[in-house]
């Protein structure tokens, strides 16, 4: 045990003496939370909209006023003709142009129908979708208003849209779980695989193997510090998301921390596995980044909903551990679900951890021969 503790102490020294390691461990998580929370916001606020009003009547004034006063948009320009649309969109400030056809108000009253076009800047698909959705919603709302005033006695249907789980549709409540998932697998798997291959590359691993330390002790000694630091990372991210974004954990915090530990363990065993198949630090970094980081971002449901993916990717994502953890952590943090609803995902993670450790132990033994 004393041998082991001395070895763990040495590993901590490696980490604390290398500013780059420290930065990756703690700087990146904090930066990512802030970037995802603030900069890559999925909400729209004061998006630039240009108005091309070819009718200029009471109805169009009212409707455009309603759109612009919603808080989501601000007027970036008043256009006079269709020719200007292309130009104003190219400038970039304007995310969409709303076009009222000629005689909009008259048609609406006479024919009960008038058309309005929303021309959005498709080069930013996310914003474009959001802008068109918001505008359509406002127009629908307006439709109902005027329908109500025209037919005084008609039933007024006021649809009330309510969002469960994320009532304000704040995107950071989606990002915090994603960032935790990404950071943990990155830090745990990448760092462990790098630190183990570093000993191989520098030749110190050979000396350790010849020493009375058992291989299990060497591996545990190397991953223990990362386990502790990753766990601290979880606490830091959760505290930040609560303090900065006011995002509380709805479910049991104990369950959340326990699941995080399981996920850290899974990532560490994955890191050990990577280190057994790579002989240089470069290989380890490459495998971790390409093999883990990209799929985590793309296939875990972190940014792109799995439901919307082609079936192939859906199946592919089944072998990605982050997919399960994201479900778990979103469940606990945002919906407040208990173990009853996430036991399947938990079970899959336990299974994966066992498999990774099993393969690593076998590989490690083979290498010794």
């Amino acid at each position, binding site marked *: 045990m004393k041998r082991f503790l001395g070895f763990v102490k040495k590993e901590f*020294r*490696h980490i604390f003496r290398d500013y780059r390691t420290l930065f990756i461990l703690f700087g990146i998580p904090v930066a990512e939370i802030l970037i995802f929370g603030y900069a890559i916001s999925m909400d729209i606020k004061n998006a630039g909209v240009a108005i091309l009003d070819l009718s200029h009547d009471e109805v169009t004034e009212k409707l455009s006023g309603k759109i612009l006063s919603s808080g989501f948009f601000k007027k970036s320009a008043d256009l006079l003709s269709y020719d200007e649309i292309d130009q104003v969109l190219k400038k970039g400030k304007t995310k969409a142009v709303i076009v009222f056809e000629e005689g909009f108000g008259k048609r609406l009253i006479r024919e009960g129908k008038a058309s309005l076009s929303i021309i959005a800047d498709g080069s930013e698909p996310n914003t474009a979708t959001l802008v068109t959705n918001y505008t359509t919603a406002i127009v629908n709302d307006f439709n109902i208003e005027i329908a109500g005033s025209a037919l005084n006695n008609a039933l007024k249907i006021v649809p009330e849209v309510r969002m469960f789980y994320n009532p304000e549709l704040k995107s950071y409540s989606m990002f915090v779980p994603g960032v935790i998932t990404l950071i943990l697998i990155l830090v745990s798997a990448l760092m462990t695989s790098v630190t183990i291959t570093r000993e191989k590359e520098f030749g110190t691993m050979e000396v350790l193997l010849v020493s009375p330390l058992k291989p299990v002790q060497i591996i545990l000694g190397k991953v223990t510090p990362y386990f502790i630091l990753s766990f601290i990372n979880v606490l830091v991210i959760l505290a930040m998301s609560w303090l900065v974004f006011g995002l509380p954990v709805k479910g049991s915090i104990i369950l959340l921390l326990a699941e995080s530990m399981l996920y850290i363990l899974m990532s560490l065993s994955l890191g050990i596995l990577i280190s057994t198949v790579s002989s240089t630090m470069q290989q380890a970094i490459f495998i971790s980044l390409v093999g883990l980081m990209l799929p985590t971002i793309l296939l875990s449901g972190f940014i792109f909903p799995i439901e919307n993916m082609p079936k192939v990717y859906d199946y592919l994502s089944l072998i990605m551990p982050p997919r399960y953890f994201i479900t778990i952590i979103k469940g606990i943090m945002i919906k407040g679900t208990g173990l009853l609803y996430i036991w399947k995902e938990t079970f899959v993670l336990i299974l994966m951890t066992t498999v990774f450790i099993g393969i690593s132990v076998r590989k490690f033994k083979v290498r010794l021969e």
Partner: protein
Amino acid sequence: MKEKVIEVENLVKRFGHFTANDRLSFDVYEGEIFGFLGANGAGKTTAIRILSGLSSPTSGKVKVAGFDAGTQAEMIKRNIGYMCQKFSLYEDLTVRENIALYGGIYGLSRSEITERTAQLLDRLRFREYENKLISDLPLGLKQKLSFAVAVLHEPRIVFLDEPTGGVDPITRRQFWEMIYETAERGITIFVTTHYMDEAEYCDRISIMNDGRIVALDTPSNLKKQYNVSSVEEVFIKIARPGVG
């Protein structure tokens, strides 16, 4: 006669169809400096891995420090020291921390570590470097420290795998002085090298070729036997018959 610390009889190591070590037999005695020579790929590394408990023999009897290499590898590891051709101290730890780390790994008590660290620093005249990071030391000093650390726990045998690669001649000379001092303390030295002048410093040398030991004697006897003036010529005659 001195006690045998390494006994090898008919050691065979196969990897599939490839025989890396073919019926090796030799003994190494306490306090001896035993040179283990051979061209690259002759099977030296495989043999050292078996002797140091990293790998087990396919067949044959191997005893190191009185323990069987097939079944008691853990006991062997406690009784040997090892220094490999790649430099084996941690660059981002200080001299003192490296010594304490290896002392701890080999199960020395805190007071033993303190005591031996002090001795070691004085003997190597390393006091001024004790709190310097290894990365700030010149290669020669690193190599010396590396050796001192490998024998910190007073093992019965120390394995040196090409310990002087890339070191200047003066440092090599100093390094060999350390080896002599250590051997005088009764620690057996098992060393591989590519420098033939170093082979001359050994008490006995063995030369391997194609997985077999083809010569084993004192340097002077070998030179007599092959009727040449240096170990280098012996080596060339044996290891590369076509060239010689």
